[in-house]
């Protein structure tokens, strides 16, 4: 009996001890290692091609966020003469301060973190993709090289935005993984970064994807191609004042587009509408079949998207579970709020009715009717139509030329693609480079050379301008009016303003011009045209300083990065000290 009880006691103890000890902790260190669920850790990642593709897609989708695109818009255009405050913009102090040129270090648009987020993702791919190539036999060296070209281009594009906005920025090419990496990186100069970017792109451009599989119709314009890299190079060389190279790369693209066009003709895939070359350039015809209606090119490029003129655009799929173009939705407006936070400057809106023609050269420029949409019930007030509707049509059948517009995207559901580069942009880059290449010497040879170059530039501008001219009579520009280098320079820039209006380019054009002139007088002249609420004088004096056309570093950034030196136009960015009595 006793033994029986002893046994049961023993077994009870044994059972408790055993279950507790052996089943629960097989090993101390193992016990304290928890495998995360729903998330993947670095050690388990970067094994196969799909891992690479996932982060590459993450690079693109992070560029599609409102934070990034809104900055492309604010930085690239809002300080320019194109844009003024729209509906209730006064309530958005950050935006209101941009229009007042009252930008300080605490303005939220001075935050660059989201661009560096893209950069860090790209750097991460660049670090780990070679490892995948070693592990996954189906991920070949050529695929690896294409990936490297693709993410390098994305990273370089982000840096290109940053230097055009802030001038000098930290240039980081390694991914951040550990907390013991150096984080307070000092800024590198504009020129050094630009050189690094062009060198980087030159080295990868040949391995970039030329054509994506036909089965993926959105990849060709929605992802980086060799064309996209060439467009970036043309743009960068223009900023670098290396005009030969700019022209070289622009020509590559124009030729590529021509080949594309000819192939399509051969396979007769092109509708009759688009089957014409305009002065030898494969531009989409804006004219609709009857001749009385225009808007075809506009609807193709900005409405449908992925047009034949497109080189690189961020694709927003018509899918509610994916990102919508939130920046356009709030800035340019939607079916509920139109205009949005911003609208075209008044002098652009009244350019034709007042017959001022400061921007558009005639009332026959269809871009006036396409880019802007009158706000109902308010005379001479326009909202931005580009990107906010799926189509626009210019109607010549009435006494006055009129625009008619497709329905505005509903709030939060704007799915129009955001275009980074398209053909006319590159063509005008080439035109700008040609103008700058024109010698100013008095010698006959020089004059002859200048004449050739300027005529080439003129041909480009004329083709683009002609495409959007709905006049029944002559459509060509008058060469005599633009035969000098300075007038041609002005024409190219003006054509860029008309053609690329509201695409986040105008302010950068003015900054590039200021860099070239080494003064801001042209920029100030343009900006003062929009004459915002009597503060013009203060704005002009503020912008008279070269430093002031860039952005200040954000105060939060200065606080944590002691190696950043604030742009002198914006002071130290910190409050004067608060005394403690």
């Amino acid at each position, binding site marked *: 009996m006793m033994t029986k009880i002893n046994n049961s006691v023993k077994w009870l103890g044994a059972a408790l001890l055993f279950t507790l000890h052996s089943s629960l902790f097989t090993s101390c260190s193992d016990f304290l290692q*928890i495998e995360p669920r729903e*998330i993947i850790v*670095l050690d388990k990642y970067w094994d196969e091609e799909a891992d690479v593709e*996932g982060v590459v*897609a993450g690079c693109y989708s992070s560029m599609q966020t409102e934070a990034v695109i809104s900055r492309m818009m604010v930085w690239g255009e809002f300080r320019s003469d194109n844009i003024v405050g729209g509906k209730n913009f006064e309530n958005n102090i950050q935006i209101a301060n941009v229009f007042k040129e009252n930008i300080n270090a605490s303005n939220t648009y001075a935050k660059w973190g989201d661009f560096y987020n893209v950069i860090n993702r790209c750097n*991460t791919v660049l670090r780990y993709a070679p490892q995948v190539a070693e592990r996954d036999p189906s991920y070949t060296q050529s695929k690896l090289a294409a990936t490297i070209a693709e993410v390098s281009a994305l990273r370089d594009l982000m840096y290109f935005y940053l230097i055009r906005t802030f001038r000098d920025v930290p240039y980081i090419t390694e991914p951040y*993984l550990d*907390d013991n990496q150096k984080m307070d990186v000092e800024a590198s100069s504009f020129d050094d970064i630009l050189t690094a970017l062009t060198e980087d792109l030159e080295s990868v451009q040949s391995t970039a994807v030329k054509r994506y599989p036909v089965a993926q119709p959105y990849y060709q314009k929605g992802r980086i191609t060799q064309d996209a890299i060439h467009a970036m190079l043309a743009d960068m060389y223009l900023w670098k004042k290396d005009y030969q190279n700019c022209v070289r790369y622009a020509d590559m693209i124009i030729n590529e587009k021509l080949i594309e066009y000819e192939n399509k003709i051969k396979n007769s895939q092109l509708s009759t509408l688009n089957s014409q070359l305009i002065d030898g350039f494969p531009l989409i015809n804006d004219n609709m079949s009857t001749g009385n209606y225009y808007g075809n090119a506009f609807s193709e490029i900005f409405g449908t998207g992925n047009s034949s003129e497109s080189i690189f655009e961020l694709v927003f799929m018509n899918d509610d579970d994916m990102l919508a173009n939130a920046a356009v939705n709030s800035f340019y407006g939607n079916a509920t709020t139109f205009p949005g936070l911003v609208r075209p400057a008044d002098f652009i809106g009244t350019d034709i009715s007042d017959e001022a023609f400061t921007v558009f050269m005639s009332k026959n420029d269809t871009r006036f009717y396409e880019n802007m949409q009158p706000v109902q019930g308010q005379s001479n007030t326009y909202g931005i139509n580009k990107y906010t509707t799926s189509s626009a049509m210019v109607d010549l059948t009435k006494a006055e030329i009129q625009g008619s517009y497709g329905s505005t995207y509903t709030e939060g559901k704007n799915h129009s693609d955001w275009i980074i580069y398209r053909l006319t942009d590159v063509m005008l880059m080439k035109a700008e480079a040609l103008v700058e290449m024109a010698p100013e010497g008095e010698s006959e040879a020089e004059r002859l050379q200048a004449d050739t170059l300027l005529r080439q530039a003129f041909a480009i501008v004329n083709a683009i301008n002609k495409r959007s001219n709905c006049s029944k009579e002559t459509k060509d520009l008058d060469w005599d009016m633009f035969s000098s280098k300075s007038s041609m320079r002005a024409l190219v820039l003006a054509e860029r303003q008309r053609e690329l209006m509201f695409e986040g380019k105008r302010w950068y054009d003015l900054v590039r011009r200021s860099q070239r002139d080494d003064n801001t007088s042209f920029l100030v002249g343009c900006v003062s045209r929009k004459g915002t609420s009597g503060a013009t004088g203060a704005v002009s004096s503020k912008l008279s300083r070269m430093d002031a056309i860039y952005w200040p570093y954000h105060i939060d950034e200065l606080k944590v990065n002691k190696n950043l030196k604030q742009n002198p136009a914006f002071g130290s960015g910190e409050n004067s000290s*608060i005394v*403690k009595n």
Partner: protein
Amino acid sequence: MEMNTIKHKFFFRRFLILAFLLQSSIFNLQSSICQAQIKNVHGTVSDDMGELMGVSVCEIDGTGRIIEATTTDMNGNFSMHIRNAKDKLRFSYVGCKTQTLPIDREAYKIKMTSQTTIKEVTITSKKKLNGGGLAIPEREISYATQTIDMKEFEGLGLTTVDEALQGRIAGLDIVANSGNLGAGTSMRLRGASSISTLTNSNPLIVVNGNTWNVDMNNFDVTNANDEQFAQLLNVNPEDIASITVLKDAAATAIYGSQGANGVIEITTKRGSRGTPKLTYSLRLTGTYQPKGYEMLSGDDYTMLLKESYFNPQQDDGASDIRELNYDPTFSEYEQYNNNTDWVDAVTQWGLRQNHYLSVTGGGEKATFRISGGYDHETGSVIEQKQDRFSTRVALDYYVSERIKISTNFALTYTDTERNYDDLLSIAYKKMPNMSIYEQYPVGHPLQGQNTEKYYTMLQSAPSVFDGEQKSYVNPVASAKLAKFDDRTYDITPELELNYRLLGMDEDHHQLNWQGRVYMNIFNEYVDKFYPKELVTLSWNNGVNNANAASSKSVAFNTKQTLTFIPYFANKDHSLMAMGRFELTSGSSNGQSTDATKLPSGGIISPIGGGRVTGMSSNFSEWRSMYYTFSTHYAYKGRYMVDFSLRADGTTKFGPERQWGYFPAVSLRWNIIDEPWFQKLVGVNNDSEEQWISMLAIRPSWGRVGNQPNRDYLYESIYSSDTKYINMGGMKPENIRLTDLRWETTTTWDVGFDLGLLNDRITLQAEWYYSTRRDMLMENVSIPSSTGFPTLTYSNVGSMRNIGWELNLNTNKLIKIGKFFADVNFAFGNNKNEILTMDETVLKSLNSDFDYNNREVLQRVQLHNPFGAIYGFRYKGVYEYQYETFVDMSNEERLQFVAEGHTAPYVLSETGEIVVDDENKPVRMMYNYSHDATGKNYEFQGGDAIYEDINHDGQINSLDIVYLGSSLPKLTGGFGFTLNYGRWKLNSQFNYRVGNKILNIARLDTEAMSSNNNQSKAVNWRWRKEGNVTTIPRAMYGASTNYNTLVSDRFVEDGSFVRLNYLQLSYSFDQKTIKRILGVNRLSMYASANNLFVITKYKGVDPEVGYGGYGASVDGGQTPRAKSYTLGVTVDF
């Protein structure tokens, strides 16, 4: 894998040794008795009065386990079969001394003696503290601790434990989070001591040695803050036997990283032997909201607003707002011509009933205690309701003298119906000329009378009401129509096995093993619905919104404890040692569904046919492992040494830093027991009355740690991102923290214990010095050029806390006949200082002044305490316009200034009027800058005057000065108890002294820059030239004026004394009660809680929580309700 097998072997061997020990000890006992075989025994049992019936006769074996048992019959006879003659016979009877005899004969004649008549009794048991560690006699405790026996609160109308602790523990500052139902409290032991934990530096709660293992981090309900300490709500105060607060690191080190903020150990009541005792208690409590600010009536309000709109533009057009015009032609006229007291409309008398029933009892083999409580409460704000059901079962089963099995089971269910919106704060802002119900319009026969429909401002109302009045829901409608239901289930089953492996008493070596398994199950369900009647949005903008969320957490904890108490032949030595191994693992998952556009009419579930707008789920898992070693040595009961070491293993750090080690040493010297001291003060241990009964000094040193509250920090995580075209996106989520270290706190503590007059007065004093290193801070900003805005955690610096505490308690201090009285006092003071801090962290903690109204500045400086308040100095209101002053002659101006009249002129440092080249007085400006980047505001008559500290003719950031500290100089409480016969009067006060509070709530009610209702104080506002007042003029618009910059106008002294409770109780004479009602005990009481607060503070309640490293700000949270309670307790 090999590692595993080795470990397996190791533990198996350990188990074998244990089993061997077990068996051999039993074997020894078996062999000690050897007798002739006896099969049956019989006999009689009697006492002085004669034969006894019902005496328990048991055969017990060597381990004390009962083998056979019987009871005596009416004549006191018994007879039973014996299984083993080596066993013993035991006779026991209630009230008599138990006798144990060897089985050496067949017939027994036993005479029981009464327990009370036994002359020679040596009481060897000492009062011991038994929390999570060793049971150390109270006189030998060498660390800083304070215990409250809940007997003191018996029958007191307390709903929660924290209410009982308030003001009783020196150094423990308790602040109610808000007066909402189910809202908890924040506790701070010895001051705010870390940055990361500032918002959650509540002490660790240990219930019966178990900690709350459920991780609630990832479940975010709207009122998450309120939930923080809700776990305390889940222990019914009636179930608590005692509460011990462990304060210094030496005491908390056995809890390692969990105990860094101090530990509150709660012991619940257990069963006791005897006839079952049934207790029922009932409490009825009425609660109401204390009176807040007096708000304007509808008439005063409209007059103010008209002025406020007129002033900035001096234009009647600006104030032409139909809602303020009392124009009968306006279609909504009847809705805006009222005098509604919104605050009154949303408050009420709340009623709480607490029913509580407990049964305790037990016999030889088992004791039990079963309790159940049901509470029903309606809030002092309308439509708040809480039901709580809690039950606790404690069972101890004595298998034998060696083995005891205990089980605890506790369940708490709460069902809280909250308000969807913060009604009280809306009520203070809502325009009072608006009606609650829609009223019949002009021309209707019932014009001006209420319809059944709640009124909500139309979306077509002027845009000046956008974002404020238009978005303020009708609070009465929200209370009645919206739904916010929160249900929680908290279940904690526990099984414990105690085994005495060696000796059973102090004359033998004792080795006790305790194995314990504890589970923690916490489920929470939240359902919310917001009907379309509450908003005037169109259907497409999303109305009829619902949310359903649930979270389920399970944690499993096991503790294996071995305690060794060796026997020393030399009684001068005593030693105890304990080793413990503990494992915790748990997981939680939750999901949440949002939907909108649900069909109207009763459907309130998100899956009821609307559009699902959001679905989310989460999962988390945590594990930890602890080793604890603790030992206590005493020599002659005079010199004590304690040492403990705890090793914490956690999943929060990377493999290299997984383990933290936390040692502690403490000493105690009972000076009182030194013969020389006794000679010196003339007392000795034998005398009955000692004027000094305790004097001891207790130095200690210890280190505790702190860990982050997130997992996977040391891993680079990849998570999914939005798709691009058709490619699934992935992204790197974080920068992994390879360098993250444990936060450690090292504390030196010196304590004194003093007992006077036979311990009728006991006094404890503590002084401490603690240094926190490698402070953990969450979300530390880093350069965003890294691609990430923050590091999840970082060790950012170190800080120091120095403080002292004093605690005085009495035990029948004054005793005159049937009257006796007691008092208690507690004081505490803590000073903190930042010693080092990462420069960039310091910079990002310090805010920049943006020159806006209501902007609270935060400034953290090295070698300064947290909680400093900065702002301008307020000097009243400019009586006259600047122009009036300019138009005066020089003499008039001088006289004007000499008479103390004010206008926006500038005075130099020497007090002279500053004039420009044209002898025109310089005008006072606000934030002037030449390039127009400043505000460049010109002060006018009726504007606030701020002191121009540096006399530069403008008010800017250079005029901001230090206005005081949010940290109290002294916190604590005191109370007294008066007893007269069966009457008892009990009271407790708590107080804070010397802290400043920034009263933003008052600022908002006196700002006059929006359409929000304002307090009656604004009736004294500046209206026309020459008015002398301290309230500036009414100016609509956030940037039209700078009258409500943070200044000393709104910084108030937060000192207060609160009467926490006052209670009068009466217990009826037991014999009388027994005779008349047949019950054993009946007591009744009446008490008042939070009866009054003595304070200069102008806000509703000076008990405002600390504001982290910034200022302590009163944002106008729901104040603690006042209440009156009636209660009755009956024992059957």
